[in-house]
């Protein structure tokens, strides 16, 4: 199983590591039982564009690299576009991921989606990530559990 040079670069030099204290939205997905946990904090401006992202990740090389690159990809995007980022786009952006690691990119995109919905909820607005997720085969109306479901499924991938 080999990681691309770009994965190794983002693993070794992760971008935007940390926590935004006065974040507008926070997403935390994954489960230490599976060995993967990602927390992402975002700042969103008046035009619903993401101006800043920071992440923290406990996980394997792919989990850290996908977290890192998703913060780069989403920076400056509208929240609508940000929640549209697919796990495939993340993997492609990294020059591919080993099959056994594809689920890690789900962790990153899910984290972002949860953070956006958190931002919307805080402002009494309708969550939008769920709607996006419905295009996903694993769709589950309750976005949060859906995320958990994916995480759980990730566990299975580990067995």
């Amino acid at each position: 199983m080999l990681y691309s040079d770009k994965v190794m670069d983002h693993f070794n030099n992760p971008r935007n590591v940390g926590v935004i204290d006065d974040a507008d939205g926070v997403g935390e997905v994954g489960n230490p039982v599976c060995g993967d946990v990602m927390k992402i904090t975002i700042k969103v401006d008046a035009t619903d564009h993401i101006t800043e992202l920071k992440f923290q990740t406990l996980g394997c090389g792919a989990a850290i690299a996908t977290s890192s690159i998703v913060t780069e990809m989403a920076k400056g995007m509208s929240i609508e576009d940000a929640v549209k980022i697919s796990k495939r786009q993340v993997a492609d952006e990294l020059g591919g991921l080993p099959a056994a690691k594809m689920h890690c990119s789900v962790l990153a995109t899910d984290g972002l989606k949860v953070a956006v919905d958190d931002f919307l909820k805080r402002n009494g607005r309708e969550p939008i990530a769920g709607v996006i997720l419905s295009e996903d085969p694993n769709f589950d109306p309750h976005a949060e559990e859906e995320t958990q479901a994916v995480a759980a499924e990730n566990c299975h991938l580990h067995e």
Partner: protein
Amino acid sequence: MQEGKSEPTMSDATPRTVYLDYAATTPVDERVVTAMLPFLTEHYGNPNSLYGLGRDAYRALEAARESFARGIGAADPGEVIFTGAGTEGDNAAVLGIARAGRARGKGDHVIVSSFEHHAILEPAHRLAKEGFEVTELRPREDGLIHTEDLRAILRDSTVLVSVMHANNELGTIQPIKELAAATHEVGGYFHTDAIQALGKVEWNAVDNGVDAASFSAHKIYGPKGVGVLYLKRGTPFEVYMIGGGQESKKRSGTQNVAGATAFAKALELMLAERETENPRLEALRDRVIDGVLQMPHTALNGARDVPRLPGTANLSINGVEGEAMLLRLDNLGIAVSTGSACSSGSLEPSHVLLAIGLKPEIAHGSLRVTVGRFTTDADVDYLLEKLPPIIELLRAMSPVYAKMFGASA
């Protein structure tokens, strides 16, 4: 090695290489290479051929068999069967003894320890599919299988018990002599996967009383793809690899004369150097253990005071994920493992660590360091210098470390 260079990798830019994964595999010792080479190019005959070249190969094969038999204290060289891998010996023993034992009218109950290598667990699962009743025997937190725990589940119908001699992840050494004796009390047969133990701990087939044992050359500075199945005379055995009837009809396929010669030579070297080498390795291993335990939220897996392999240390490093730690160390040329490297690209939390009671979130953060023939004090210094900052960095990146273990790192 053009393949290696074909694509730049962290390791290629490495200042130095510090190999600390001798339990995964070992380099072939130059003396072993020298012993095996003539059988590739010069004495290349098929040992089953009657002419001179064949007889020369036959003699070399039998000389290797006798040397190996002496090395493991077998009563008779005919009990040494050369195989194509450690996994082959494990498969052949578990499937072959259970099936033939049942056919002989012995029961259909099989016991394997739950921290066996997959090369034992998978055949055990296959036996269960075939209608055998398979019981998994759990090790205790100390990393050992206890004979009284085996006694508690042995039955008159127990045909086979397989418990590894030294665990490949923990390095803990099981009391196989007692376990074999207990198994024999109910008339069962005892197999041990001694792949990690061979050449490192006292091993005498007659004395320890096992009925079968598996060995693999690449764990003791021999080539990959060469193994031995020790099968005590009279042990029921359904032959695993069938065909031309080589190895006295116990394992078919043209024998790998060079490989057999290499394995015998590798074992000779292990035994000749063990007395001086073991204390050296134990000192290096203990430096690793003590050094890592300096860091907060770390623990040695398995009890410290139980019998252990001289070179193997397995530690839990809470709040980090093993692969990330492994890759960070690899950037600096340090090769270690997390979980079992024998399991293809697999990253599941080690079934061995779960078996001794670790929580999954803890098992994900295990570090296995194994020192060997070419490990120096400087190598250990280098590991102990480079590891702590990596741990701190990864813990700092974790969203849960502070929550789970308090920020005291």
